C-alpha cells in the first residue's frame, strides 16, 4: 500500500495548496519525515516546489508528538510559509493541541548564531594570561600563608593541635608503605643498572658510591616528593574543594574562625614536617634495595656494602637531600590548599583542580630540584 508509506503530500483544493499529513509523526521517525519534507525530493522544499501551503490537513494522522510538529513547522517556515497563520483542518483534537503547543513556542526555538570561537592565537594568549593569573594567585596565597605561620610563632596556642596530628597521620604515617616500596624498587633498579656497567670494568664496589649518592641526594627526595604531590596535594585539593562546595568553609568564616588557620596551616605544617621523615624512610629503603641487589648479582655482601657506604657517602649529600624536602613540601602543600580553596561552586571544578594540583605539584618539585642543582653546583657542594 503506497499510501501508508506517504507521510505527507500536497494537493490543490479550491485554489489553495493543502499539505496532507498522515501516519505516525513521531520523534523516532524524524529523519525519514525530514527527508520526505525537504530536499531534494521533499514535498515542501523539493525541486518541484510549489507555493507554500496555507492549510494543513490532519485527517490521516495517527499520532503526532512535539518533535514531529516542530519539524513540520520548521520545514514550512523554510519553504516560505508562515507557521503563525497556517490553518489546521480535520485534526484530532489531541493532535491539534500538541501542534498548537509547539506553534505557540515556535518563535522561541529560533537558533541564535553560533558563538564566536577564539582563534588559535587568541587562545594561546588567553591561556598565558590565565597561567599568569594563577601564578600571581599562588604568590599571594604563599604570602598569606607565611603571615599566618608567623602569627602562629607569636601565638603558638592558636595551633590546631588535633587537626595537625590528624594530618600528620594521613600525610605521614599512612604514606610510609608506598614510599618504602617505591624507593626500595628504585634502589634495586639503580644497583642493577649500574652493576651491569661496573661489572665490565671489574668496578663492582663503586656501584655503592653511585647508588649512595644518587639515592640520598636526588632520587629519594625527588621521588618521595612526587608521590606526595600526587597523594597529599591531590587530597588537600579534594578535601578543601568539597568543603568549599558544601559551604563548610563559609560556615567556618561566619563562625568567626580563620579558614587559613584552621585548614591551611595544619596541612602545610604536616607536610613540611613529614616529607623529610619520609625522605629518610626512602633513603633507608632505597639503600636496602640496592644492598639486596648488590648481594644477589654483584657479590657485594651487606657487610662490604655498609663499609663502603661509610667511606663513599659524604654527610653533605645526605643533608642536601633531606634539606631540599621541606621546600618541596611547602610548595606542594600551598598549591594543594590554594587549588582546593579556589574551587568554584560546581562538582566538575573539584576534578579539574585536583588534576591541576598534581600536575603543578610535580612540575614545581622538578623545577625546584633543578634550581637546587644549579645553586649547589655554584656553591661547590
Amino acid at each position, binding site marked *: 500500500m503506497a499510501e501508508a508509506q506517504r507521510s505527507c503530500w500536497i494537493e490543490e483544493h479550491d485554489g489553495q495548496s493543502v499539505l496532507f499529513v498522515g501516519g505516525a509523526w513521531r520523534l523516532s521517525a*524524524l529523519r525519514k519525515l525530514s527527508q520526505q519534507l525537504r530536499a531534494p525530493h521533499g514535498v515542501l522544499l523539493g525541486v518541484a516546489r510549489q507555493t507554500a501551503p496555507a492549510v494543513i490537513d490532519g485527517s490521516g494522522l495517527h499520532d503526532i508528538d512535539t518533535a514531529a510538529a516542530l519539524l513540520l513547522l520548521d520545514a514550512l517556515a523554510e519553504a516560505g510559509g508562515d507557521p503563525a497563520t497556517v490553518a489546521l483542518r480535520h485534526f484530532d483534537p489531541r493532535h491539534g*493541541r*500538541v501542534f498548537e503547543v509547539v506553534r505557540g513556542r515556535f518563535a522561541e*526555538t529560533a537558533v541564535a548564531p553560533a*558563538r564566536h570561537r577564539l582563534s588559535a592565537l587568541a587562545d594561546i594568549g588567553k591561556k598565558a594570561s590565565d597561567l599568569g593569573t594563577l601564578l600571581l594567585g599562588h604568590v599571594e596565597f604563599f604570602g598569606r600563608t607565611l603571615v599566618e605561620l608567623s602569627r602562629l610563632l607569636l601565638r603558638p596556642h592558636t595551633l590546631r593541635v588535633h587537626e595537625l596530628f590528624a594530618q600528620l597521620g594521613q600525610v605521614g604515617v599512612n604514606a610510609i608503605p608506598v614510599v618504602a616500596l617505591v624507593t626500595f624498587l628504585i634502589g634495586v633498579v639503580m644497583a642493577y643498572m649500574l652493576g651491569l656497567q661496573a661489572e665490565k670494568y671489574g668496578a663492582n664496589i663503586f656501584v655503592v658510591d653511585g647508588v649512595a649518592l644518587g639515592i640520598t641526594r636526588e632520587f629519594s627526595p625527588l621521588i618521595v616528593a612526587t608521590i606526595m604531590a600526587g597523594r597529599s596535594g591531590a587530597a588537600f585539593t579534594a578535601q578543601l574543594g568539597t568543603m568549599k562546595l558544601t559551604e563548610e568553609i563559609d560556615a567556618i568564616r561566619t563562625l568567626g574562625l580563620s579558614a587559613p588557620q584552621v585548614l591551611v596551616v595544619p596541612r602545610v605544617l604536616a607536610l613540611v614536617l613529614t616529607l623529610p621523615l619520609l625522605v629518610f624512610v626512602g633513603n633507608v629503603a632505597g639503600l636496602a634495595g640496592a644492598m639486596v641487589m648488590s648481594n644477589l648479582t654483584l657479590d657485594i655482601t651487606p657487610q662490604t656494602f655498609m663499609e663502603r657506604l661509610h667511606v663513599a657517602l659524604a654527610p653533605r649529600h645526605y643533608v642536601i637531600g633531606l634539606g631540599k624536602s621541606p621546600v618541596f613540601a611547602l610548595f606542594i602543600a600551598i598549591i594543594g590548599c590554594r587549588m582546593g580553596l579556589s574551587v568554584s561552586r*560546581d562538582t*566538575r571544578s573539584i576534578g579539574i583542580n585536583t588534576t591541576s594540583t598534581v600536575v603543578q605539584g610535580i612540575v614545581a618539585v622538578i623545577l625546584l630540584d633543578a634550581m637546587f642543582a644549579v645553586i649547589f653546583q655554584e656553591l661547590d657542594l
Partner: protein
Amino acid sequence: MNAQADAVIEVEGVVTRFGAQTVHDGLSLQVRRGELVALIGGSGSGKSVLLREILGLQRPTAGTVRLLGTDMWNASDDELAATRKRFGMMFQEGALFSSLDVAGNVATPLLEHTDTPAELLPRLVNLRLALAGLSADVGAKMPAQLSGGMKKRAALARALALEPEVLFLDEPTSGLDPITARAFDQLLAFLNKDLGLTVLMVTHDLDTLLSIARRVVVLGRGTVIADGTADAVMAVQDPWIQSYFSSRQTVSTATDPGRTAQADGA
C-alpha cells in the same frame, strides 16, 4: 477499556528491607495513563525508594514492578533499554551533567537514542527548553551558573527530550520560592493536560497537592494508607495525614510554647 491495559505503572506487593528496617511491606499501587499523581508521606516512609524501584534503579526485596508493561526487575537488557526511552525522570537536584552546557544536557538523550537530523537538533533542544519554561539563551549556560529553579527546569527539559509517556519527578518544587514553585505546578499541569503525559511525583508541597494533583497517594507504615483526590485524602482519619494537612494552619495559629513560658516568667 479495562483498567489493567490502561495501567502505566503497576506496583504489586513490594517489600523493601534495609537490614532490619522494613520500608515497604507489601505495597501495591497502580497509575493509569494520563493521571497526575502526587506521592506523599513522612520522612522515611520510602517515597523516594519506591520511585527508584519503579525506575529500575533499586531492587525491591520482593514484589513486582511493571512500568509501561515491562517487569522492571525481570526484563532483558533490551526490553529495559526500550522502556527507558519511554519515560523521563527529573531528579531532586537536577542531576545535570556538569561538564555539558544546558543545551548539551538536553541534546544528550536525543543524540544517543534518536537520529534527529542535525539541522533540526538545536531547534528541538530549544523547544524542550521552551516547554520547560526556559528561554533559548539559557542553553549556552553551564549547570553551575544556574539558579535552583532554572536547574530544575533544565532537568525537566532533559527529562522531556525523548517525548516520554511517563514523567517522574522527585520533589519538583522543593527549594523554590512560592512564585517559581506555582509556575512549576502550572507547567506540570499543562504537560499533563495538553501533552497527555502521565505524571508521578514525590512532593511535600501542600500547594502542589491542592492545586494540580488529581490523585494523592499517601505512604505510611510500609504501605498505602490513603489514595484519592486531595479532598478525599484529607478526610481520612489518620494522625499523620491530619497533622500534615493542618500543618500550615497550626503554624499560623498556634502559640509558641517557648514564648508563652517566657511571658510567664516575666
